[in-house]
């Protein structure tokens, strides 16, 4: 028995378990049957174990170069290094769907074992819905179009190897799993939302129950997108990181919709408003994850990610249509029960800012969707071919992003209901003065054009509001509890992680905004054809071309250009020739510093005598802060997702028999 048999068998055994899970969880919820619930939970665990076994089998088959499996033969070669063999699990469609299914099975198991202990109807109904989704994907992976374990007979001696772009950089091991984790974890809030509709609940229990999974999904998708931008920057050789490519759009759309959702749920929790809106947002964000997969895997739109095209397009489209019809149908049916009780306050109240923010985020999402699908629609209607790329998206999205940065600064500073003039002055004096300083810095850095200067001003504004909030929080804790500044600062995060973690995320976004503005506005490019030993000047730096060398590896041939920088540092950039690629793949040479990146590519060279090479050099300011900003966002989200300290302290207090409330200093304040 080979790994292929194990994997194929495991997937086929998991499908009936998932189907049984739908039935048993649904009945358990309805009849309050504990035995059926137990059965559903074990089905989840067994299905997860089987799917995981299938994924491990595929990884083992890839590592063992088992060319009798078609997926391995098409995406692996004997010369592929172990790391790139293992991560070829997601190098093409079938493997990606397998990874997706594995994560989904994990999510089902998490909900089954974590949330259904006392048979709550909401969680148990959500579990049935998650089982239904898992069943769809398990049915998909055993159809011939998406089955990763299909045999090839006779087995070729060697495989084609992974797509060259996918065996060039370690980030390929990070970016796709993060994005998939983000995509798939949105299934949990979606399943709870649908369960809440089915049960006719009118409260926000589904939001509270899925707060953490929504946040984690959002953060993983966000960090995954930044990792993808970094990969694009480090591999594709164009000195950029975001091209509004359809797959990039497919990833950013659910993230934008989910960002709107994470904020608008706060309005529902505090003000009992926006119930149907939040349900619609979570359904929308989840549907966009499927739409993205469909768009990019069906070959409907061209993309750098269309590594394979497949017949599963119609199946995914059918699934998307079913999800949309079912969930929006439910929403319409339950609309009468979702009446609003709260009211919006003044235009300068926190809830009003959240609403404006939601309008802008939804518009930003819709514009990306429109720009992605518009060429298809125009071609279908008139036959005209049309391109929509970065000039369109930049012009539409940049103003929205600027407005959002502004709201990000003012929203957290405003009280619910509304603010008086005195409050406004007190809250905004420092931040607005800092914004002025930010604008001045932008001018001194040589930025011209309103947008990048505004980005500096708004980023300074946002960071100042956060610093002011933290400063005041620390001061309050020191006054009340006599804590040292460091302890007070730490306890802000420990006790109100959701709030202060959110501020950290805002700082990360401000850092990203500045990095984008600087790297877009002030990047300098130069190109020269050089003989060995001669130099070119770019942005005050000298780059000397030392010469070319040929490097032969088992999996590829490389031509490497060695460069010396004016500070004595050395850098090399290469063109790689893979047996399965028609054109050469460039590997940029990148020297990163905190201030800027020097980014060099070998554009052309003398193949006969190595007598010359055309070198393109870009100096890109602050671009590494984009990745750092992504990391800050991830850390902030982690802080916000961690359980607050108070719950565990109270539990301890109860266990130890301390009178409740005694150690909680809130009593003093009240």
């Amino acid at each position, binding site marked *: 028995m080979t790994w292929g048999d194990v994997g194929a068998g495991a997937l086929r055994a998991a499908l009936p378990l998932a189907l049984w899970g739908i039935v048993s969880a649904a009945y358990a919820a309805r009849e309050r049957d504990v035995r059926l619930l137990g059965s559903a939970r074990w089905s989840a665990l067994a299905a997860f174990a089987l799917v995981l076994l299938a994924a491990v089998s595929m990884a083992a088959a890839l590592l063992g170069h088992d060319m009798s499996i078609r997926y391995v033969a098409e995406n692996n070669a004997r010369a592929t290094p172990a790391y790139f063999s293992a991560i070829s699990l997601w190098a093409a469609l079938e493997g990606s769907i397998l990874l997706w299914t594995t994560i989904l099975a994990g999510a089902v198991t998490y909900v089954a074992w974590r949330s259904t202990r006392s048979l709550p109807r909401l969680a148990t109904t959500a579990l049935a819905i998650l089982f239904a989704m898992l069943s769809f994907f398990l049915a998909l992976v055993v159809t011939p179009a998406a089955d990763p374990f299909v045999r090839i007979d006779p087995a070729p001696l060697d495989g084609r190897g992974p797509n060259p772009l996918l065996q060039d950089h370690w980030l390929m091991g990070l970016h796709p799993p993060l994005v998939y984790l983000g995509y798939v974890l949105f299934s949990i809030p979606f399943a709870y939302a649908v369960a809440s509709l089915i049960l006719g609940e009118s409260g926000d229990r589904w939001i509270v129950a899925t707060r953490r999974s929504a946040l984690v999904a959002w953060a993983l998708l966000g960090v995954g997108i930044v990792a993808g931008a970094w990969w694009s920057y480090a591999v594709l050789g164009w000195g950029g990181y975001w091209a509004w490519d359809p797959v990039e759009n497919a990833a950013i759309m659910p993230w934008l919709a989910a960002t709107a959702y994470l904020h608008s749920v706060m309005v529902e929790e505090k003000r009992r408003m926006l119930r149907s809106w939040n349900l619609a947002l979570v359904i929308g964000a989840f549907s966009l994850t499927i739409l993205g997969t469909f768009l990019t895997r069906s070959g409907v739109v061209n993309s750098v990610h269309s590594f394979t095209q497949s017949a599963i397009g119609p199946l995914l489209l059918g699934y998307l249509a079913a999800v949309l019809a079912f969930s929006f149908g439910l929403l319409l049916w339950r609309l009468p029960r979702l009446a609003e009780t709260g009211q919006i306050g003044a235009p300068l109240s926190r809830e009003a800012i959240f609403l404006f923010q939601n309008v802008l985020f939804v518009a930003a999402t819709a514009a990306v969707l429109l720009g992605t699908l518009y060429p298809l629609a125009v071609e279908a209607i008139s036959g005209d071919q049309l*391109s929509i790329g970065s000039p369109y998206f930049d012009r539409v999205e940049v103003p929205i992003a600027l407005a959002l940065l502004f709201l990000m600064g003012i929203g957290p500073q405003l009280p619910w209901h509304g603010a008086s003039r005195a409050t406004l002055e007190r809250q905004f004096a420092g931040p*607005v003065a800092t914004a*002025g300083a930010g604008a001045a810095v932008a001018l001194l850095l040589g930025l011209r054009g309103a947008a990048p200067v505004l980005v500096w001003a708004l980023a300074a504004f946002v960071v100042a509001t956060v610093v002011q909030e933290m400063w005041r929080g620390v001061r309050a804790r020191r006054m009340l509890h006599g804590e040292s500044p460091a302890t007070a600062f730490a306890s802000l995060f420990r006790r109100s992680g959701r709030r202060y973690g959110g501020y950290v995320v805002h700082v990360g976004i401000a850092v990203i905004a500045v990095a984008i503005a600087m790297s877009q506005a002030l990047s300098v490019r130069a190109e020269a054809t050089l003989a060995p030993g001669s130099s070119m000047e770019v942005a005050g730096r000298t780059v000397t071309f030392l010469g070319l060398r040929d490097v032969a590896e088992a999996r590829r041939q490389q031509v490497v250009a060695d460069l010396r920088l004016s500070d004595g540092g050395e850098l090399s950039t290469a063109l790689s020739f893979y047996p399965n690629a028609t054109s050469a793949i460039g590997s940029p040479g990148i020297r990163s510093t905190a201030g800027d990146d020097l980014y060099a590519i070998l554009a052309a060279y003398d193949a006969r005598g190595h007598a010359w090479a055309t070198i393109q050099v870009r100096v890109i300011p602050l671009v590494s802060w984009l990745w750092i900003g992504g990391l800050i966002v991830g850390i902030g989200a982690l802080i916000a997702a961690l359980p607050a300290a108070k719950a565990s302290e109270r539990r301890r207090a109860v266990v130890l028999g301390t009178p409740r409330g005694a150690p909680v200093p809130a009593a003093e304040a009240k």
Partner: protein
Amino acid sequence: MTSRAALVVGIALVAVALAIAAAPRSETQGERVARLAAELRCPVCQGLSVEDSPSDTARAMRALVEQRVAEGRSDDAIRAEFRQAYGDWIFLSPPLLDPRGLVWLLPAAAILAGLALVATRLGRAPPAPAPTADQLALLRERARLEDAIE
């Protein structure tokens, strides 16, 4: 510095900086080439512009733009040359004054509609009587403490 003075100075600084940054200035030839090349699609890439793409085709097209700019041709003449060779497809954003320009209008319309919808629902809650400065400071401190402890 009082709060109000800080606000005024900050807003004034931002306004002046924006006015300086947005002031019209003459474009260098290199900037013109970059701007025009960014409008053009690299025909052999997936959605990258001629300015961004390192491919041979894009570099050749960029060289042509550079040559035309050096010859003193107008923006429209250069665009027309590419339109004739490739059709509208070669431009990365659709024409504005054209039925296909709807794609520009829709996002703006969506934002305006959304903002109008929110605006009609604003301020329905009766405004609370304005508290005095002292009450306000007390309330704010309390809210902050509650939040910090929460």
